[in-house]
């Protein structure tokens, strides 16, 4: 080992050359690396890891809500979940809600983005208006629609009934309430897709279209061969995000229908809530939530593996 004959530079601080705690060598990079990610790590632990761990723990216990003594029951909550008819029903309805609202949001959102991107004047104003719907708090959106669908003086109600689309309170209609909830959610969340797609559309240089015109491309061919491939990656990402968000969506459904009428709009998050607070089974409710989480995790991984949006996003 070489003998360090250099005089110690007292102006340098201890972490600039690294130091060691016992046998652990800590370089300067390590020091700063850990120091900078530590706050995030702590926050993440506090708001994500601990609650998830808590939920998993609770799902392994029998916890009556009014008498919160945890009785360990192993996996029996899960066994019970899979035996519940309403679990499979809510999973199906959750799937319908997720797929339906994602498709509508995608169609409307991409269409709005294409229109705004085409406008030469007023596109700023229009996009501001469109994005406003996304910024309005969910509770306001639902209040607005509840007012408009009110059977006594709601304007949408009057229009729908006069046109013969529905009778009585729309959200109280067993066969139509799911569709209504999907449409109302899409009204709010389509702007998310627009925002995403518009950013991608605006990054396509005009030259691409000019070069395509020179090559003889029609408007449709330019859309098919330039626009679509250029925004495809963004669309894959947006499908993923919207699907996850919509599958987990709780607030807008609860505020509109509380999962009703009957269980017509009871998706999985609604079921988890009702099992916990209406059926007084904290452990069982958590088991539903964990199953939901695992379901999303597996489908998410499969989606990312096979659709691979990151490969498409590259320019």
């Amino acid at each position, binding site marked *: 080992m070489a003998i360090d004959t250099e005089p110690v530079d007292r102006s340098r601080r201890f972490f600039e050359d690294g130091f060691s705690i016992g046998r652990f060598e800590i370089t300067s990079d390590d020091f700063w690396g850990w120091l900078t990610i530590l706050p995030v790590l702590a926050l993440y632990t506090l708001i994500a890891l601990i609650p998830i761990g808590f939920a998993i723990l609770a799902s392994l216990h029998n916890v009556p809500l009014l008498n919160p003594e945890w009785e360990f029951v192993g996996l029996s909550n899960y066994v019970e979940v899979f035996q519940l008819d309403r679990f499979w029903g809510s999973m199906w309805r959750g799937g319908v809600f997720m797929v339906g609202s994602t498709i509508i949001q995608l169609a409307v959102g991409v269409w709005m983005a294409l229109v705004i991107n085409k406008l030469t004047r007023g596109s700023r104003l229009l996009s501001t208006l469109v994005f406003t719907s996304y910024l309005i708090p969910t509770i306001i959106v639902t209040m607005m629609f509840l007012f408009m669908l009110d059977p006594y003086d709601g304007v949408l109600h009057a229009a729908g009934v006069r046109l013969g689309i529905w009778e009585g309170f729309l959200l109280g209609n067993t066969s139509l309430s799911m569709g209504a909830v999907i449409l109302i959610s899409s009204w709010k969340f389509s702007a998310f897709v627009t925002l995403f797609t518009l950013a991608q559309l605006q990054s396509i*240089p005009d030259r691409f279209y000019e*070069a395509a015109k020179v090559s003889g491309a029609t408007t449709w061919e330019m859309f098919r061969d330039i626009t679509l491939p250029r925004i495809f990656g963004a669309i894959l990402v947006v499908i993923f995000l919207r699907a996850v968000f919509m599958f987990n969506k709780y607030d807008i459904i609860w505020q509109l229908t509380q999962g009703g009428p009957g269980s017509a709009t009871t998706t999985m998050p609604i079921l988890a809530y009702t099992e916990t607070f209406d059926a007084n089974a904290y452990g069982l409710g958590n088991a539903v939530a964990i199953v939901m989480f695992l379901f999303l995790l597996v489908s998410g991984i499969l989606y990312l593996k096979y659709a691979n949006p990151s490969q498409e996003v590259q320019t």
Partner: protein
Amino acid sequence: MVDVTIENLTKEFGQLVAVDDFSLTIEDGEFITLVGPSGCGKTTTLRCVAGLESSTSGQIKFGDHDVTDYPVQQRGIALLFQDIALYPHMSVRENMAYPLKLEGASKEKRNDRVREAAEMLQITDQLDKYPNELSGGQQQRVALGRSIVRQPTMFLFDEPMSDLDAKLKHELRPLFAEVTEKVGCPTMYVTHDQEEAMTMSDRIAVMNDGELEQVGTPNEVYNEPETAFVGEFIGRPNMEFFDASVSRRNGSLDIDIGDATYEIGANQALDQYDGGNVRIGIRPQDITVVEDPDDGLTADHVFDETLGDQTHSQFETPLGRITVVTPPQFRGNESQYGLQLEPDYMKTFDPDSGLRVD
């Protein structure tokens, strides 16, 4: 294939007149370069001919065919952009085959044409790569390939080499010339680089401020500039200009530049300027440096730019800073000299309009 005729083309953007009453005929197989400083309207002219911009007035004809109101797609042109505009999501092969695909050509035909073009452009080994894996020069070759897989009615180049370095330019210049000659249609090449214009063109059209200043072969625009602007824009180093006064003596005319007087004999064109002023332009190649400061224009040497085959020497004179092309061994050493202008090579311009008058 046919001639391309541009008649009285005008393009206005609101108040701004970008192209003003532009007329030009490009003959079949002819390579014409539109050259001028940035903002002179040359690119706008090209975009009008391409159909990417609609003209305010005027006509564009391919042969006897008026295409003024045709969309780009129906003009059948080939166009090379400065920013190349290859599609990043398509391979080189797909990029090149794209116009054929739109035409609905069969797969074999597409492959044949792409291979043919790739061979001519020496990019056969690049066909399966993606544009972002290629250098700028290679990308421009691919773009050139994309434009020649179909037989175009006309070839347009919009400053295709502006973003490339000098070495690549020298490589691509002969390639462009070779390819356009093989394709054989009228070619309009837009550039701000007078050297590109001089080396590649059959004829050069010099534009300034939306207007066509002069059209002619490279030699014509170099030797006989019709306006002071053309004289200054074409040729390096820039033409030098002097304010001069004209006076008559014994039936012949004298031109006074500073304290030097040049006798130019009888000249009818200059008669009207007798007693008035003209602008004299002369190329730095046609100015001679003499040791005697009193012979010609007195000049203080400032510095030399050695180029190897010649030297560009700068002099401070009472009429301003002058560049002179001197022999390769010339070293001025900041002393005083006399500058002699060759009367035979002086070009005389009207001081107000800038038009050639001799």
